[in-house]
């Protein structure tokens, strides 16, 4: 067991009915790294991250957050972990400030600290203008931001973000990037899933490429892409097809 890994996955497997969604994944996310998990739609990214943070019970394998087994000792592991799940609703009939207060208190934080951090997060993420608007009436980008604020509130040592840049406008995306970069510089570790190459190339120190439920390549950004473009490496690794120009002639 490597103690330096912020997140370590060992042989994670998940089957849905007959379909194998994740087929035995081993992955080490070094502490202090900015880790990008790449993969096409349906590669098993969300399934993997859900198993890593304790939302989805794996059929086999283990996950460790900073050395704590997520499934054997969930309380200790979850204390050090911030999560932004994808495709999951928030308690969206609360206002933004209420939702942050709720999340903080659920984590057993001191109410005074919750207040101070919540106000600051709302300001930084440009959400304080929304006032008492219910989160259900937020735009998609605002929802991602309030979700991120919920994940950051208790100052976790590891952030697991599922598609943090999906449906986010460029202005908010830049803001989120900046916050995450500062967080990593401060000693935190981020792992996020994405299929946007530009973002990954710009942010990440490490990447892993997933397809059909298994890791196809992993390492530092330079190890994985070599001298080439990350997108070319990705398409080649995943085995995508390129258009020849013959098909869809009727379009």
């Amino acid at each position: 067991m490597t103690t330096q890994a912020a997140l370590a996955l060992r042989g994670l497997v998940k089957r849905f009915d007959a379909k194998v969604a994740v087929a035995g994944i081993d992955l080490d996310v070094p502490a202090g790294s900015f880790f990008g998990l790449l993969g096409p739609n349906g590669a098993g990214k969300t399934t993997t991250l859900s198993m890593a943070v304790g939302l989805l019970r794996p059929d086999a394998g283990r996950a460790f957050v900073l050395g704590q087994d997520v499934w054997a000792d969930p309380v200790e592991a979850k204390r050090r972990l911030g999560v932004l799940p994808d495709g999951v609703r928030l308690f969206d009939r609360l206002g933004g400030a209420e939702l942050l207060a709720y999340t903080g208190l659920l984590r057993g934080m001191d109410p005074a600290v919750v207040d101070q951090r919540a106000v600051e997060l709302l300001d930084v993420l440009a959400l304080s203008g929304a006032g008492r608007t219910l989160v259900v009436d937020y735009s998609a980008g605002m929802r991602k931001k309030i979700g991120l604020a919920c994940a950051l509130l208790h100052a976790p040592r590891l952030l697991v973000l599922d598609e943090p840049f999906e449906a986010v406008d460029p202005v908010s995306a830049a803001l989120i990037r900046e916050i995450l970069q500062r967080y990593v510089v401060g000693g935190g570790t981020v792992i996020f899933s994405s299929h946007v190459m530009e973002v990954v190339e710009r942010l990440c120190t490490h990447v892993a490429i997933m397809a059909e439920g298994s890791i196809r390549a992993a390492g530092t950004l330079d190890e994985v892409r070599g001298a080439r473009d990350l997108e070319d490496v990705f398409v080649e690794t995943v085995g995508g097809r390129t258009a020849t120009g013959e098909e869809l002639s009727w379009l």
Partner: protein
Amino acid sequence: MAVTFARLKLRVLGNGLRGQTWRIVLFVVGLVIGLWFAGIGFLLFTLSGVRSQPELAVLVPAFGGGMIVLGWLLVPLVWSGVDETLDPARFALLPLSRPTVLVGLFTAALIGVPAVTTLVATAGLVVGAGRHGGLPAAATEAVAIVLGLLLCVAASRAMTSAFSSLLRARRTRDTAAVALAMLAALLGPLQIAVFAAAQRAGLDRLVRAAELLGWTPFGAPYLIGFDVAAGRYAAALGRLAITAGTIAVLLWWWARTLESAMLGVAAAGAAPDRRRTTRSPVAQLLGRLPRTRSGALVAREVRYWWRDARRRASLITVGVLSVVIPFSGNLGALLTPDEVRTPPPPFGLLMGAMMTVGSLAAVSLANQFGFDGTAYAAHLIAGVKGRTELAARAIAYSVYILPLLVVASIVAAVLAGGPEHLPAMLGGVLAVYGAGLAVNLAVSVVAAYALPETSNPFAVNTGAGLAKSLLAMGALLGALAAAAPIVVLALVLDGVWSALLLPVGVVYGGGAVWLGITVVGELLDRRAPEVLAAVTPRR
């Protein structure tokens, strides 16, 4: 085109069953139960053909048919929900004219166990009409019961669709909530009042009432064949016009609300409330509640019972039913003026009603995690303890329900003849409510199921309407069974001693809740990821 919609619905139904053994079992159980009721209904409706009792040819179709229409109107609203397998919003982008979509969705709505049950049951009327008027009458009645089914389905769709759009909009939702409450309040007493009145009123009076009912949409379709049998062709035509007209109006109304349901996805979202507040986030959430985990959970649950349309609909119907049930036994007597002062209903009957109330009141929690859907993930991520979670949920729900139970107990005590009955009533209802909470907490963890993510608070997934009804029924009976010692005690103690029920009931109910929270809480700690998976809608 309608055939395409029907095939689509059948395919979705089939795919929903594929590889899910428990769903197949549930479907078969539902089918068997449906056919069982259909068989009983069929036999009852054939009574309309007894030649020696000609008045039955009016009474059975009018009252029986009326009950069926009323059932279709109210039951989906307050109990089972509607099967929204084909969500109207999914057809918004297809190049289909509105009539096409309407006819298609209507055809799809006709497919299901309830429709089959209704058709089989009312087929008894075809036999009845045939006994009176031979083949022509039977053939007419056969058409008439199909029209009756169309009317029932149109009524239920129009009703749920209209209510869901009303409950959605913030401007109208409170009015809609009150209207829904009053409809729910109608369901129980109406039935009992009709039975009670039927027992007291003379036969000729009943026949007159049935004839009147026969000229309303509730009875009209089912009497057409009997008119033909008796040679009243003008009356038959008149009733046919009433039936067809009602169907047309209901479909027109449904089409209008359907339009907004189809736009619903795109048009959702209210004007943002940008008012700034100087209160700190924690204060905004909690008000005066303790600033702890439990405080936060209770605060959120209390808000959700009112802000979430689905929960609100459930809360209102259960709440109103609990106040109305003790009344309903006595209502029949109030409606018959020729009777002299009726004696108060027996204490045991009211006590039974109150126990039912206590058990019913807790049923809303049976799928509490389903209401939250995937949002429940936040509790998993934060690592909320099962006991804390369940205790907070029970407390928040009781904030609404306990006052109602007190009101219901007062009503029951007054009906029973005086305030000296209050302690017993209150004790009984609290004991059963406590046991009900414990049972429903367990059900909510063991048998959670996903609700569709539509804005229609009455929508359930295919087959889930039945699952919902069976689970609720099981929880209802389970609560009564869990409170069996108190039920026995209530029957044994009388007079002054009945007041003992209050302390005993409170302790028993409280103990049941505590035990439930402890045991089920531990179960939830182990099963939380499974609960989340169960309430996540399949996409």
